[in-house]
């Protein structure tokens, strides 16, 4: 066997081969140093962001109780389909499945996806960019069957989640709606204003009524469920859970039994008068000794439950397009001339100044020459020789033209403003309107003509340019009843925590002592208590066993051309009143005694358990 020379590779090529491997390995090492050591923090942050997610847990809003502790607003659980945009793989396919499951048109889901929280997105990519973790609510109040179906499909629907959410529940639907208001998703503008107070873009906030005014008590503190999720967006484990803190409850001054009576009596009374014609109306019942609102209703009302889960465009359009505007709170925002109910003010002023003595006999011809302008009493005619109390019971315009003339514009205005007219009462409800008491400057500005001395004769009987709300008239009446103390009307008595311990009490607040004499007020009450007597304007409306005081009002509209707006203020029982009530029916036609007074009577009969 001969030996052959050993094989030898070219050293240059060997060097090149080894160099090639070395360079490649060094490139890998360099890259690993860059990824792991130089930029490791960034990648670790990305890994954390990948897996850690904070799922906000909405806090149940506080419960609202009436004065006796009856639950009038609460929460109920609702199962919703929520979309977490960043986890969606194929939005078209997923929405198709969700639409089928919920039996909703796909177009509606797209609409909810792209237009929510007051923001309009052009496409889904924008939603992913701006709201990666949403959640965007696609559907609410799922049935058990729908939930089961979605649970089955969970793996095919990445980013689609079924969550239980507390939803505001108003068990009495429309009743009390103008007190409670409603809640809704925070809008972008609201969020911009409120984010400093700890609100988040997914919050449900009070939009109107008590829900809005007391939102910071009612909302509670949202909790958070910090979870690790896997690549499919499924929760792998819970890292930490902060339970939500439910909102504080409110104890109202409302008497729910009375509220229900009032709502029904108002609707019934309007129907009884108008038949197929519909009118707006309002009733305010106040505790004359504290200013606490016992009942407050505006008709037509609305169902706040419609807003609790984002309201459909159709439903919202219905509320907006109804000419009677159900969302409009007439009790605190409808300011109209008050008709003769204002004689409570004129009368107290006339006896206080005094421009008339209690038993002074005044001749009422049924008309009065106010500085050259002849004012006629169309309704009552002349009473002949009369005194203050019968004239008030009969609502004699002739008598009160004289009183107004004796007072003059300046003094009448002073007393009107002292009784709280032309100013916000400060009730704890949003949207109050201050009404109006005309001044010379106002008259020049609005009509181009100065206030004439003769204008006092129309203002003094609640006509002309004066305007007041039902709330203001109930408050005037309260002052008349309680001896001249004008309280700030309020709806909330106290704030309570979860254990129903009182954490804050709202004591009655006095706006002012009205500068009228007790005797004057007693005389006004005397006149009002005879309103159902023979010769009184509400004769025939007396309730057997329940003497009550009242004053009708009939205000001309459109300068006498339109249908009358009718008013009635009442208090009961006459001797020791526990409530002061103002009833208002907007442009109902007829007289206060025909439209508004029967509603008040109906309320009193039911509330005091009297025979009708």
């Amino acid at each position, binding site marked *: 066997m001969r030996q052959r020379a050993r094989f030898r590779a070219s050293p240059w090529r060997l060097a090149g081969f080894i160099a090639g491997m070395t360079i490649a390995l060094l490139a890998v090492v360099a890259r690993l140093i860059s*990824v792991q050591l130089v930029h490791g923090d960034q990648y670790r942050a990305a890994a954390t962001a990948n897996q850690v997610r904070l799922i906000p847990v909405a806090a149940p809003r506080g419960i609202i109780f009436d004065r006796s502790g009856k639950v009038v607003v609460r929460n109920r659980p609702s199962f919703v389909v929520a979309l977490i945009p960043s986890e969606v793989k194929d939005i078209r396919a997923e929405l198709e499945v969700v639409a089928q499951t919920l039996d909703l048109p796909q177009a509606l889901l797209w609409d909810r996806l792209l237009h929510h929280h007051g923001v309009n997105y052009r496409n889904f990519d924008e939603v992913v960019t701006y709201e990666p973790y949403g959640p965007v609510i696609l559907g609410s109040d799922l049935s058990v069957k729908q939930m089961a179906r979605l649970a089955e499909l969970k793996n095919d629907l990445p980013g689609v989640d079924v969550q239980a959410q507390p939803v505001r529940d108003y068990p009495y639907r429309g009743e009390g709606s103008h007190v409670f208001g409603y809640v809704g998703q925070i809008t972008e503008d609201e969020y911009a204003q409120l984010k400093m107070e700890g609100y988040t873009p997914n919050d449900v906030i009070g939009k109107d009524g008590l829900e809005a005014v007391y939102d910071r008590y009612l909302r509670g503190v949202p909790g958070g469920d910090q979870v690790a999720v896997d*690549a499919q967006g499924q929760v792998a484990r819970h890292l930490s859970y902060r339970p939500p803190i439910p909102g504080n409850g409110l104890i109202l001054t409302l008497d729910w039994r009375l509220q229900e009576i009032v709502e029904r009596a108002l609707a019934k009374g309007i129907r009884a008068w108008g038949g197929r014609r519909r009118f707006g109306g309002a009733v305010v019942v106040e505790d004359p000794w504290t200013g606490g609102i016992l009942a407050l209703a505006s008709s037509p009302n609305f169902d706040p439950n419609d807003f609790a889960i984002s309201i459909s465009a159709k439903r919202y359009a219905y509320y907006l397009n109804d000419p009677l505007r159900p969302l409009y709170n007439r009790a605190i925002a409808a300011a109209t001339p008050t008709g003769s109910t204002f004689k409570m003010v004129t009368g107290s002023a006339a006896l206080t100044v005094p421009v008339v003595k209690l038993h002074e006999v005044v001749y009422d011809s049924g008309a009065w020459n106010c500085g050259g302008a002849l004012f006629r009493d169309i309704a009552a005619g002349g009473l002949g020789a009369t005194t203050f109390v019968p004239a008030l019971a009969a609502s004699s315009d002739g008598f009160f033209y004289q009183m107004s003339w004796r007072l003059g514009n300046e003094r009448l205005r002073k007393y009107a403003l002292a009784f709280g007219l032309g100013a916000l009462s400060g009730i704890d409800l949003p949207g109050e309107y201050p009404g109006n008491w005309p001044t010379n400057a106002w008259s020049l500005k609005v009509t181009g003509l100065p206030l004439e001395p003769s204008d006092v004769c129309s203002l003094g009987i609640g006509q002309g340019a004066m305007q007041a709300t039902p709330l203001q008239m109930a408050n005037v009446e309260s002052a008349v009843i309680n001896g001249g103390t004008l309280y700030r009307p309020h709806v909330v008595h106290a704030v309570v925590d979860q254990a129903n311990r009182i954490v804050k009490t709202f004591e009655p607040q006095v706006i002012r002592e009205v500068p009228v004499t007790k005797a004057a007020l007693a005389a006004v009450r005397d006149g009002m208590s005879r309103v159902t007597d023979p010769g009184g304007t509400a004769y025939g409306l007396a309730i057997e066993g329940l003497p009550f005081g009242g004053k009708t009002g009939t205000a001309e509209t459109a300068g006498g051309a339109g249908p009358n707006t009718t008013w009635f203020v009442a208090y009961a029982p006459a001797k020791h009143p526990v409530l002061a009530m103002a009833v208002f029916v907007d442009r109902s036609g007829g007289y206060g005694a025909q439209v508004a007074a029967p509603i008040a009577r109906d309320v009193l009969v039911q509330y005091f358990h009297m025979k009708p």
Partner: protein
Amino acid sequence: MATLTFVSRRRIRELNWPLLVGSIAATAIGLFVIQSAGLHTAEAHTAYRKQAVYAVLGIGIMFGCSVVDYRIWRRIAPYLYGLNLAALLAILVLPHTSHGAQRWIAIGPLIVQPSEPAKLFLAIAIAAMLCRSDYRKLTDMWLPLLATAVPAILILKQPDLGTTLVIMAILTAELYFGLRRIEDFLIYIGGLAAAATYVVSSHFLKPFQKARLLVFLNPKIDPQGVGYSLNQSKIAVGNGQWIGRGWHQGTQTQLNFVPEHATDFAFTVLAEEFGFLGVVVLLALYVTILVGGVQAMLAARDRFSFLLATGIVAMLCFHMIVNIGMTIGIMPITGIPLPFISYGGSAIVTDFAAIGILLNIYAQKDRLIARSEE
């Protein structure tokens, strides 16, 4: 005549320790990685045990190959090549689809991935063919080129872009040393580039393969789609930082953000859970293996064994670089297993067989060579 004693003083003296220690230590690390990667999968407690069985089988085959005279491979090269082609063709006829690709065939209870041993068989076949003549002229190259192209196309059709690239790397490395004139090698490189351009631009690649190549060029074009794996892998590797998140503690791995973490992305698991230090240990073991491989190349007595050792070293090195590179975004995602680490029986057995051949080449460095065999 060699003694039948399996373990002898001479054997131990002639043993290439870097190859042996490097491969077995890397396999041990691999078992920890696969155990952790499988924690939250359906085959949670079976994958690493199966892999251990394959590793033991592979080590046995390694020792077997280390005592088989490498010259036998040259003699049976045509048969190995034929077997190889038959197996690759069989895949097309007997589909066993996984992940939309046909890569496996069942032989009795065993499911074999023929493209893994195919790499080794081709390394042998190419080395054998390159010894048939001196290849003074470029035109003489048609046989090894054709012989490589046929299985390469079959594997590309599976589709398995990664293995095709490995075969091309083996061919290139063996031609680098096998061609007499460096100009011929450069012409070959030019032709290879032209062919690659054609393949990429034609319909030859499946859409997902093209997408992977495009995403490699710009991972941000599709963060949730094809680029998703790459981005999640990079995040996981970076998440490891110096010392890693700890065994079983890699969030990217355990929460399944990183796909295929026991196979293609096993390195990612190692990097996330054991950090840069763990990575350095593995790379050190790899360098040890490559050093052992180069020692075998230098020890090669003849042209065939040198070219075969070259092909094997190139194969292992290419696997390491391309697999690690893909997890950190410097190589396209191709699904090449990480040697001794990635879960997969065919791959680990092939790797150990390759080490066994290198061991034999190294062991024979001082033996005489009969002229008749050259």
